[in-house]
């Protein structure tokens, strides 16, 4: 259905603390969110739909390694896996990107040369974001110079929770401008596990969307509470409303905590039902995950042979 671009962003009755950013407060109802998720999870995704969905999910993965102990060799292994997820299976896609720290970009870039797999780098003092804007921009610039195709930034959660929305928005805008200047895609990590409520998640998503980044993203994967279907639904609804207002399609990346294929298919069903099929592409939807790929591969293998193969047959990188 054609979308209408007529919903006002600002409801004057609902002003927020920081008057310099006019941010509508959109209520979120936890019961409603849970009901919607239950209904999506009741969808039965079988046979051809399952295979198509698994292929799609694989093509949307950002294979990630973000450890202090990362080595060049580990990154190279991950890159090989990104291009060759499982050579025994024919006709399967590559993953979308490999996600690393800035110092590993060159290594990844080199290893992925000639493939369509992109290099994503975290930046802006990931994962805490506890630094000045100048230093964050400096790190972003470094990542871009090193050759990152995509930058995953974190928002200043402390400032956001203190109600300093203008500060946070300016930061996102500054990083986004720098990325756009070099045709680099930006993902904005809200770190929803630190925001305390779905209302705050919605507000943070709306704030980030005001900067029109390429993606908004749930989590760093560095704290216990990573992506779940609740925050993802709330963020997808924010993206939907943003599209209705502006006609701009911002992407979504749940990250961390999604490790099985069945859950991934439920996420895709959520995207389809909330945003529509225009978002069912790696250009607009990603999974930040490292273990998910192997479960998808195992399921695809099972679809072909009817049997589950031992996990030992799938490379752990």
């Amino acid at each position, binding site marked *: 259905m054609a979308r209408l671009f007529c919903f006002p962003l600002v409801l004057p009755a609902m002003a927020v603390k920081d008057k310099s950013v006019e941010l509508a407060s959109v209520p979120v109802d936890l019961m*409603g969110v849970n009901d919607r998720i239950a209904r999506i999870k009741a969808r039965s995704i079988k046979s051809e739909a399952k295979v198509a969905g698994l292929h799609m999910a694989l093509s949307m993965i950002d294979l990630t390694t973000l450890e202090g102990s990362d080595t060049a060799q580990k990154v190279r292994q991950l890159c090989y896996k990104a291009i060759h997820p499982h050579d025994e299976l024919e006709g399967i896609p590559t993953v979308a990107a490999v996600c690393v720290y800035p110092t590993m970009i060159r290594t990844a870039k080199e290893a992925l040369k000639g493939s369509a797999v992109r290099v994503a780098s975290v930046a802006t003092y990931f994962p805490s974001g506890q630094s000045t804007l100048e230093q964050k921009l400096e790190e972003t610039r470094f990542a871009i110079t090193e050759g990152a195709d995509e930058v995953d930034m974190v928002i200043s959660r402390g400032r956001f929770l203190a109600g300093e929305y203008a500060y946070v928005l300016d930061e996102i805008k500054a990083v986004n401008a720098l990325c756009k200047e070099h045709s680099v895609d930006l993902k904005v990590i809200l770190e929803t596990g630190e925001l305390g409520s779905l209302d705050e998640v919605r507000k943070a998503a709306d704030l980030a969307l005001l900067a029109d980044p390429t993606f908004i993203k749930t989590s760093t994967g560095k704290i216990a509470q990573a992506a779940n279907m609740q925050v993802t639904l709330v963020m997808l609804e924010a993206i939907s409303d943003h599209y209705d207002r502006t006609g701009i399609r911002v992407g979504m990346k749940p990250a961390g905590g999604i490790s099985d294929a069945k859950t991934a298919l439920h996420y895709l069903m959520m995207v389809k039902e909330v945003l529509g099929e225009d978002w069912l592409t790696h250009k607009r939807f990603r999974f930040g995950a490292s273990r998910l790929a192997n479960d998808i591969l195992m399921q695809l293998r099972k679809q072909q042979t009817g049997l589950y193969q031992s996990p030992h047959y799938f490379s752990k990188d």
Partner: protein
Amino acid sequence: MTKDWNLSAAPESTSHIQLQSEYGLFIGGKWIKPSDGSYFDTSNPATEKRIASIALAGKKDVDAAFKAADHAFDGWSSLSGAERGKYIFRIARIIQEKSREFAVIESMDGGKPIRESRDIDIPLAAAHFFYYAGWADKLDYVFPGRKMRPLGVAAQIIPWNFPLLMAAWKIAPALACGNTVVLKPAETTSLTALKLAEVIDEAGLPPGVVNIITGDGATGALMTAHPTPKKLAFTGSTEVGKQIYKAAIQGGKKVTLELGGKAANIIFDDAPIDAAVEGIINGIYFNQGHVCCAGSRLFVQETVYDEVLAKLKRRMDSLIVGDPMDKNTDIGAINSKAQLKTIERYLKLGSEEGAEIYQPACNLPEKGYWCKPTLFTNVAQSNRIAQEEIFGPVLAIQTFRTIEEVIEKANNTPYGLSAGVWTDKGSKIFQLTKELKAGVVWANTYNKFDPTSPFGGFKESGFGREGGIHGLEAYLSFD
């Protein structure tokens, strides 16, 4: 990459169900052929195919059923509460064990999506038996200091929209309080009640405590006019409810009626809109709108009307209409040809009254009885589609400006069964729950049921409450 990621067919298996081709009457713990040998067919509304022949109970059969129930009453009512509870718990457990079979049969016979019968109807039916089984030995604590006794034989007539669930609502509290029962399911959906008779048999209830007879409106009339029952319990249309009320008064019987509705579902501009849209869908398209408490009148505050309408239409477009046995179906088949005709008459009437119709562009199966999810905008309060119960997937939308206006409009109906309120503001919820004349008011949700919660109407939606401890009162007399 992939465009058109469509779901593959996901049919629920039907191979495990056990159905006979002919069903008799369950009277006095035995299966009996109808005295005059009449049967009628029950068919699958999604395929129009016959499923089984069902006995048509005549006068002799109705007499026999009440005689059996009357005969069983002394024994049953003098059992200890704990003993009665044991039987009812057993029924609950067997329903749970057979839940898949019940769900499949419910969807085959009635047309509702398997997702609903599997996730809502059958688990809730079991939950009602569990809940009332628990009260059987605790009645003295429910009504402390009061001397109570069961009423005797109860005549119970249930509708076709939630066949097994309504049987559970009726039978469970009656048994817990020590009454015996003659129950008649609706003509188009007798099968799960007959399967329930098998469960009751398997649970070893003394013969005659529960008798299940099948038939049409004439059988129902024989039941309500019968001198034996001390209590009439009916769920169904307001029209039939009025006749039953008359019969109850003439016979000096206790009566509870759960009748029609035309519920207002009210969306304020400070509501969680996405959740509200989902609530509208659940409110009116649940069970094809064959729901007495369906949110069939939608009131949207004018400032969010465009947003709500656009989102509602988009969500309607994503609903899957078709084979009730497919696990992904959102909207199944209309229960009967007659009901489809009624709905279609209202669709025509709505357009004639000047309302604007919207239906998604989905394909409907060729065989069977189907109606697309429908909404009407530009509806006036005086339109018949806004006043009369359609009992189908048809929503009438109006806008409002002030809270006083919407309360007045919402209450401006002969019905008063249920209502929905969507707002982020607690004080508004409390004002509306107080001022709306409806038995159930849902806040920021819709069509949520639980055995602990009483359910029932105001005005022409009936009286008496089912569910919760209120539901016990309807089956007891107090000294």
